[in-house]
């Protein structure tokens, strides 16, 4: 039976893309992927996270696998599989690094037995877990055949037999002055027990354990090695068999097992990353994706790295909704600073990207675009002397984005041109916006130029909000509302009792 991958349907497997997409830093996707892969360096997972598969078919294929892995029993199977493979690699590393021949061979043998456990264990687990996805079902079928094959069965039998026989050996050491003599153990009695028995009448309960712990490095010193060499000579057939077995089985790992071990971690690592958030009550969902429907929607979405940070600090995570219906394509975000506007823009970008990787996204519900390209243009703090060249550079970048973008592209712009004069900002904002509208792009545009929201019926205005009674504190909620700047002003006025009614009431005749 032929099987290729749990990441890609069909035969077109891919190892991913090494290079990080240009928008990663703007959307803090680099932080997400760093955190996801932090303890998984061995797997080289980043390339998977740099490469959205690009077809609805592949996304569906991944959703199926992900849904399977959301089941406790299958997730446990996957982590068990990974742990065993890791243990196996660790033993192989020891086998390579160690110096004494029999020790090298023993660890190689140990790695083989762990491999055998891994394969049979995973087969049993996948049979018990009853996966529904094409990916895991396919893998299960393949594994069933492989584990019943002559090669694998023979490997396992021989490995366990040799290991068992070695474990049964017992030998005696006689240490006197500066020599040690090694011979077979022949039923000599345990003297510690005899001594302890003699003193038992004084025993008062269990008593303290005075046994000393010895350092147990994996390697051996030359005295231990000499003893081991003698033991090997006491049992020449057994150790000769071990040597032959290791030579014959030098390449025992099946390449598909190796590559599935890595692919599985794409899902596992992401689920591990979002689990603490989900446990804390934040929702995740499978987004509906489309290549043509531009009615974008999210309920209770949030910025992933920020949510993790807030959660660790014991603070509340604020979720936000957004929705584009009918002809609406563009969200203009304005309102008081430090109110969560940038976070909102990032959330929008992150959710789209994660959805396009075929992953679960933040929120109770999401309908997102399967984009062909994602662009970001974020304002960054720059030195004053570079302002001019920076402005020029900004324009160049926006121009490049507009040149490459297609009606299936997503653009996230954050305070672009905000460092220039208001007049310039308004002018350029309009110009850029007209082109975005004309290109029918999906776009989030964070700006202080509120009037951009009124340019067309395809734009939607959303504003960051404040606590009315205390205008200095932000709610971090971004709500759909005309950008008149009034909510903020009124709140401050109320605080100082300077609204029309209040002031009228205070001024007495």
């Amino acid at each position: 039976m032929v099987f290729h991958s749990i990441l890609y349907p069909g035969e077109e497997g891919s190892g991913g893309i090494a290079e990080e997409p240009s928008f990663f830093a703007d959307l803090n996707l680099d932080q997400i992927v760093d955190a996801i892969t932090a303890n998984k360096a061995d797997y080289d997972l980043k390339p998977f996270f740099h490469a959205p598969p690009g077809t609805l078919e592949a996304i569906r294929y991944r959703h199926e696998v992900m849904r399977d892995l959301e089941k406790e029993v299958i997730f446990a199977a996957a982590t068990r599989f990974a742990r065993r493979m890791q243990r196996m690699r660790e033993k192989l590393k020891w086998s390579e690094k160690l110096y004494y021949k029999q020790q090298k061979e023993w660890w190689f043998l140990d790695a083989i037995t762990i491999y055998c456990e891994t394969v049979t264990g995973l087969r049993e687990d996948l049979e018990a877990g009853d996966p529904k996805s094409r990916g895991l079902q396919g893998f299960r079928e393949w594994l069933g055949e492989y584990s019943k094959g002559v090669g694998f069965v023979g490997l396992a039998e021989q490995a366990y037999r040799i290991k068992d026989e070695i474990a049964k050996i017992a030998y005696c050491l006689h240490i006197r002055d500066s020599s040690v003599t090694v011979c077979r153990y022949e039923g000599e009695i345990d003297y510690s027990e005899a001594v302890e028995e003699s003193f038992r009448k004084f025993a008062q309960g269990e008593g303290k354990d005075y046994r000393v712990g010895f350092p147990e490095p994996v390697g051996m010193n030359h005295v231990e090695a000499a003893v081991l060499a003698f033991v090997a000579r006491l049992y020449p057939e057994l150790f000769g068999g071990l040597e032959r077995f290791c030579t014959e089985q030098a390449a025992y790992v099946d390449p598909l097992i190796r590559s599935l071990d890595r692919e599985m971690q794409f899902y596992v690592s992401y689920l591990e990353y979002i689990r603490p958030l989900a446990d804390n009550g934040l929702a995740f969902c499978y987004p509906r994706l489309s290549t043509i429907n531009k009615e974008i929607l999210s309920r209770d979405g949030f910025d992933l790295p920020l949510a993790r940070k807030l959660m660790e600090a014991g603070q509340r995570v604020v979720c936000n909704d957004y929705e584009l219906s009918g002809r609406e394509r563009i969200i203009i975000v304005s309102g008081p600073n430090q109110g969560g506007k940038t976070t909102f823009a990032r959330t929008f970008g992150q959710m789209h990207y994660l959805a396009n990787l075929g992953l679960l996204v933040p929120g109770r519900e999401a309908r997102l675009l399967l984009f062909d390209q994602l662009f970001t243009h974020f304002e960054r703090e720059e030195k004053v002397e570079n302002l001019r060249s920076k402005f020029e550079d900004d324009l160049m970048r926006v121009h490049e984005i507009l040149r490459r973008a297609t009606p299936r592209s997503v653009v996230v712009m954050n305070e672009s041109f905000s460092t220039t004069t208001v007049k310039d900002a308004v002018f350029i904002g309009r110009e850029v916006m007209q082109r975005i509208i004309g290109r029918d792009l999906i776009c989030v545009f964070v700006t202080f130029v509120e009037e951009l929201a009124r340019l067309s019926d395809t734009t939607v205005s959303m504003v960051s909000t404040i606590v009315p009674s205390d205008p200095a504190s932000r709610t971090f909620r971004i709500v759909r509302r005309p950008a008149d700047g009034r909510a903020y002003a009124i709140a401050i006025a109320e605080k100082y009792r300077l609204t029309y009614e209040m002031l009228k009431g205070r001024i007495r005749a």
Partner: protein
Amino acid sequence: MKAFLMYPDRDFDVEQAPPPAAEALKQDLGLPIVFRAMAGGDAFLNEVASKAVLSSLDDVETIRYRQAILRDCLGNPKTVRLLYELAVEAIQREKKGFWGGLSKHPGYMLHRSVEVLEMFTEMLRKLRGIAEQSSGSFGSAGFKRFFAMLITELSDEYFAEIGEHLRRLRFRGGVLESAMPGNGLKGRNYRLRKANDDQSGWFNRLLGRGPSSFTYRLHERDEAGARALSELRDRGINLVASAMARSTDHILSFFTLMRTELAFYVGCLNLTEALTAKRQLICFPEPSALGGRELGFEGLYDAALALSMDRNVVGNKAHAEGKDIVLITGANQGGKSTFLRSLGLAQLMMQSGMVVPARQYGAAVCSGVFSHFKREEDATMTSGKFDEELERMNRIADQIRAHGMILFNEAFAATNEREGSEIARQIVHALVEQQVRVCFVTHMYDFAHGLEEEDGDKVVFLRAERSEGGERTFRMIEARPLDTSFGEDLFRKIFSTEEASAERRDRRPAA
């Protein structure tokens, strides 16, 4: 092997936490003076005395068990002190051999254990010697069992067996150990082994078989090898070294327990000798079962007071069988507090198995003795005096159980008499209904009179005696409360001298 001299079936726990009421009892009953007399300058005796007295027994059986042992001690003081000193010596010699930081090496640890065990063996032989000599002159169940155990358990064969182990564990012929290949073929499961047949010798067997044994010899200058070999040896003797160290612990703890339990009786000997030297009487009290209402005594005096005074102290008698309340009233400074203390002290001493300072004393055991004495000052200043009194009562209420005994000395008087009486009445009624025996010294006439009216049949009324001329005799007589408290006397006595000195002052010319 257990001494079992405090309980017929268990060890005396010197580490046990004192009951919550202990601090108040010590302070109120003058216990430290008694403990000091028991200690005779030995801090350890003091500690044991304090633990034993404060954690009193509540079963008559064990009290009688201790009383019998104490009778033996009073009959054989020299032997008992000798046993105690032997235990002390064993413990001290063990400390001297302490190896401190070397405990990380099984080799050193084993060496040290063997030496300590040789010393212990010597002490145990002496102990058996004493047991053999004196078992005839001891009659109590506790001592009979103790001596019999020593004689049976510590036989000559047993000493021979131990001696053989100690000789072997010096490993003059090297160490024989077994191992198995563990992970990475490193040795595991190291066990010390005894050769199968001492006659042919395992090394002869090795020599005979030639190829079935291989020998590795370290190069002379191979220091790393020497360390490795020594570690291999340590692995083999690790278990036995631990077992030996544990055995020294166990034998040490045998001596320690023996010392601790004997310490109580040595303390009793000391106290008896001190009181006898002051020509005060002592007696073995008659305990009766928990739940009863027995209480009667003659010549009961305050041992703490007797020990700190040069003249004879006054003894009191009363018969309060069947009574729930002992109510003591009468003249100030008439010996009421002293009497209350002597009662509490005698009860505690009886319940720890000791002799008591009285000609005769008999009482039902109680589930715990509590004291609530008037305090001179509120040390913390966080609460008012009356508040502090109730707060203390609150804590007692958390702890006291049915069949307890509580001693009140001028309690709840830090307010006006009516309020104080009402509180006292409510508290006392609640306690009595819950089967607690109450001994109450009070000058609150309202309270005392109330009890007389309502609960006269439950109360035994004692009163500080006053002679014809108004002099105090410090003796309690059975009598109903009087509605004057003789404070007037005291007032006059103090004020007459004060007025006199004031007059003298007045006569001096102004500065």
